[in-house]
């Protein structure tokens, strides 16, 4: 087991009150495995990732409970200096907007080489050579010249390749990609995803892919975890989930994907809005929007039930998962 997140709770202290962003998340990632974390904005998917990475702004953020076991040791118990050495070297992160995520006043070469000088103590010259190699590796043309350029001189897709190169630099065991293709054109999205998947296979890295794009997920993920209001509401191998969702929220998400054979018909949308994290509804947090809601949903928080009869490791946080699965 590469990464094992157990019962993670994260809160943010704001002027309006305590926002409970993550409420007991559990997930695991093996070496070479891709876990897709799916959810709307505010579902806690990015916050969970930031807590795992150790880049949460604290304060206002606070990890109130849980463990982040990385190769068996709890990262939350490490001192900041030990934690820092893990970041970038053993686990790395790719962000959504590569333009704002790269430093505008440093050349991409400097930003890549920094990984080697800081973590590996390489000389600047060697680090620079490695930076060119990395840019070659992510298929940036004329890497030797472009290494001296600044982020704004690259196209969106090329910039995201540089982010990928930076994350790959020290061959980490785990990569967390937070909506890596959201800011890109559709054609470029596919190229970037392919590159990421290829590199992952080659180095047998664990990959956590955070996204709200169901299309991206289907192609590359092994497993899916669907998040809602800071909880995982369903987790399953990707194809099982697509075939038969075991949670009404997942079903709603799948139904709201535009489909060619539904052309001309009105697009389905889950009614209502995601809950405010300051006031998460009682019982099942999805109950105000759920088409299958019953009395028990308003009072009892559903645990993540094991979905029996399916391949191992499938779970749903719905009291009526059986109905959902077969209905």
């Amino acid at each position, binding site marked *: 087991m590469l990464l094992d997140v157990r019962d993670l709770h994260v809160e943010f202290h704001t002027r309006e009150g305590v926002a409970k962003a993550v409420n007991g998340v559990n997930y695991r990632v093996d070496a070479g495995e891709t876990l897709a974390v799916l959810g709307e904005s505010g579902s806690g998917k990015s916050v969970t990732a930031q807590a795992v990475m150790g*880049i949460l702004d604290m304060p206002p953020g606070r990890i109130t409970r849980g463990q982040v076991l990385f190769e068996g040791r709890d990262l939350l118990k490490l001192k900041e200096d030990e934690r820092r050495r893990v*970041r*970038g070297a053993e686990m790395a992160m790719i962000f959504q907007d590569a333009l*704002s995520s790269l430093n*505008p*006043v440093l050349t991409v070469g400097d930003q890549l080489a*920094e990984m080697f000088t*800081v973590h590996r103590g390489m000389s600047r010259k060697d680090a620079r050579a490695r930076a060119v190699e990395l840019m070659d590796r992510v298929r940036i043309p004329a890497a030797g010249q472009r290494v001296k350029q600044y982020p704004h001189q690259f196209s969106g897709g090329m910039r995201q390749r540089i982010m990928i190169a930076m994350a790959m630099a020290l061959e980490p065991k785990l990569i967390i990609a937070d909506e890596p293709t959201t800011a890109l054109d559709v054609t470029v999205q596919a190229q970037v995803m392919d590159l990421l998947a290829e590199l992952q296979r080659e180095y047998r890295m664990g990959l956590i892919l955070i996204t709200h794009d169901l299309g991206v997920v289907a192609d590359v993920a092994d497993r899916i975890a669907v998040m809602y209001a800071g909880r995982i509401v369903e987790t399953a191998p990707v194809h099982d989930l697509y075939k038969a969702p075991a949670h009404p929220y997942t079903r709603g998400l799948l139904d709201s994907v535009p489909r060619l054979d539904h052309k001309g018909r009105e697009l389905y949308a889950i009614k209502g809005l995601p809950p405010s994290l300051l006031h998460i509804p009682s019982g099942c947090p999805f109950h105000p929007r759920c088409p299958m809601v019953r009395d028990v949903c308003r009072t009892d928080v559903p645990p993540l039930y094991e979905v029996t009869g399916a391949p191992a490791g499938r779970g749903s946080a719905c009291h009526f998962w059986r109905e959902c699965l077969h209905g």
Partner: protein
Amino acid sequence: MGRYVVRRLLQMIPVFVGATLLIFLMVHVMGDPIAGLCGERECDPATAARLRGEFGLDQPVWRQYLTYMGNVLTGDFGTAFNGQPVTELMGTAFPVTIRLTLVAIVLEIVIGITLGVVTGLRRGRPVDTSVLLLTLVVISVPTFVTGLLIQLLLGVTWGWIKPSVSAEAPLGELIVPGLVLASVSLAYVTRLTRTSLAENRRSDYVRTAIAKGLPRRRVVTRHLLRNSLIPVVTFIGTDIGALMGGAIVTERIFNIHGVGYQLYQGILRQNTQTVVGFVTVLVLVFLVANLLVDLLYAVLDPRIRYA
């Protein structure tokens, strides 16, 4: 880049002409410069007429301006009414003021940026609040009050410094006056650095730098500061001109015989040549400082390219 510099230099010409014309006209309406030359008594009309002719004051204003600018371009700033060439006055005044400005700028950079960084990284903590309050006080109290107060306390009551600077104005004696001169800008630099730092601290590229596992020190110096100081450098650059011209009050308080002192004397005695000459040079300093700032801006921020 070269073309940009040429264009900027050309743009300086109308600004220079306009600014000097304005000051020339303002001095002209200040009154008759001859009137004050004969002491308490009114001037003898014949003498007055002779002086007017000698200084070219009987000519129309536009003519006076043209003659003056023509002379300036050949390096002749005229003579003050006491017969001393204005260039000679400049030769003694400018080195003193430049020294004072340098002291002020260095203090502004060192103290201002340090305080800004300290507070920007500790927003909301006691250090931050107290420095913020202090800068507010410094900004709201006029320089002549702070200056006189410091002179009184340090110079007279406690006797730590000499209350007035000697004629040669050595560097050591200029430190306290320099601090007074810099005080308001220093407070602004502190606030600007603090805000800029706090803003950039939340930016995506700083988050990336942290996610890369860089030590905190490196995140701050290499990634955060480099970006946050761009507006600060711009401010300090434009401030050079303001400090050189704005030293009038400070120079008067500490009896420093620099540009401000000469300007003050010139205005007091309606010494047209001195006032116009000094202001002309100050206008040039402003223009050049602004151009340098704009060029520096492109060096600091690679996204800006002038064509």
